[in-house]
């Protein structure tokens, strides 16, 4: 059961549709597993509806509704009911069935990484999967910029606590930690790094937030 949740301000930016795609993905993956945060987002979506109603209204063109009906009457694309799709996690869509079998790049004895930034074209953030082998330790490190992380598999622990599957954590330069993968599974996390691309000079360090 998840214990570490996104804060209300992040959920609000999610509900408003203002987050980047990688950040929205982190929230979405957490929501899939967290009824508590789903309920908070429901409320925030209602806030959005109330705000929309609270704002001025702008009259639509006279022909607007007729155009709409003409489109619905003439185009099957505009009129066919949406059929519920089988539930497929966005994670599975992005990464396939087995995240353990991805082409991981080992960086240290215990640490592997995989950069998936190219799955999100046009974004300014770096999106990285990290794997810490079961029982493995990452060296002590701090962070540059905000780093949003969600645990996809296994768990890691540091001095702040234990972060289990689907836990959500935001780290920044104030947070020095030394994560250890706990439990019997490799710990896999998804991180979105707000650090700007100017940091690509320190490529290895950027690729591996465990090490920064």
């Amino acid at each position, binding site marked *: 059961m998840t214990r570490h949740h996104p804060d209300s301000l992040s959920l*609000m930016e999610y509900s408003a*549709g203002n987050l980047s795609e990688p950040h929205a993905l982190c929230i*979405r993956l957490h929501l899939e597993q967290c009824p508590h945060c789903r309920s908070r987002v*429901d409320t925030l979506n*209602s806030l959005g*509806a109330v*705000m929309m109603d609270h704002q001025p209204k702008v009259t639509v063109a006279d022909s607007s509704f007729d155009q709409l009906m003409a489109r619905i009457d003439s185009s099957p694309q505009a009129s066919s009911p949406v059929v519920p799709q089988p539930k497929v996690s966005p994670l599975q869509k992005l990464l396939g069935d087995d995240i353990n079998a991805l082409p991981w790049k080992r960086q240290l004895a215990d640490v592997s990484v995989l950069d998936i930034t190219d799955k999100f074209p046009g974004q300014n953030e770096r999106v990285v999967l990290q794997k810490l082998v079961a029982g493995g330790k990452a060296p002590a490190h701090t962070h540059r910029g905000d780093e949003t992380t969600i645990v996809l598999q296994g768990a890691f622990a540091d001095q702040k606590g234990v972060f289990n599957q689907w836990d959500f954590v935001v*780290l920044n330069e104030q947070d020095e930690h030394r994560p250890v993968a706990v439990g019997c599974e490799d710990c896999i996390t998804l991180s979105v790094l707000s650090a700007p691309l100017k940091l690509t000079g320190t490529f290895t360090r950027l690729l591996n937030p465990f090490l920064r």
Partner: protein
Amino acid sequence: MMTIASSNTITVKERPVTTLEQQPTKTEGRKDPWGVLLEKVGKHQDRAAYHALFEHFAPQIKYYAISNGLASHAEELVQEVFVSIWRRSCLYDWRKAAASTWIFTIARNQRIDMLRKMQRTSAEMAVETEDLWQIPGDNEDEPVTSLHRLMSERRIRESLSQLPEEQITVIAKVYMEHKSHQMVADELNIPLGTVKSRVRLALNKLKVILQDQNV
């Protein structure tokens, strides 16, 4: 016991989700009038109901488009939102969201979709907008908290009138103008911390963050 991991993360206790089964009859009277119309569209393709929804929501959505910087595409966004409402109304479940909340999420997603399509071709999109931003009721097989959801919209409507204007302004910019808290701070020329505290105060009042601790 766990403590917070950073100022951006909170630790909360899981609360049991109220299931519909525990509220078998009380919820029936809470159907909102727009929800009734949506169901008529969903079940019978009722054009009069659809027209009534259009009359009410289209001017809101047009303003939403304009305030989001899509003035030259405002009519187009209204059309896209209403096509989506027509096609999805069969999935609408009044127990999962009030009609206006459901329509807000569709407007939001169509706005995101429109911006994504302007920026790149759909072939490049590995995930669809709705994989990231869900419409309430789609693929959602969890027990329903209908009473809570409908009540929350009513409660927010009532509480909003009691909020100071400066708090409403900040929330409006986040929801209506697609602005991050940082962008709101820059625009109003106030510190980011002030923006965040106004939002927190408002969300507290609206009981959105009742369960947050250590914030």
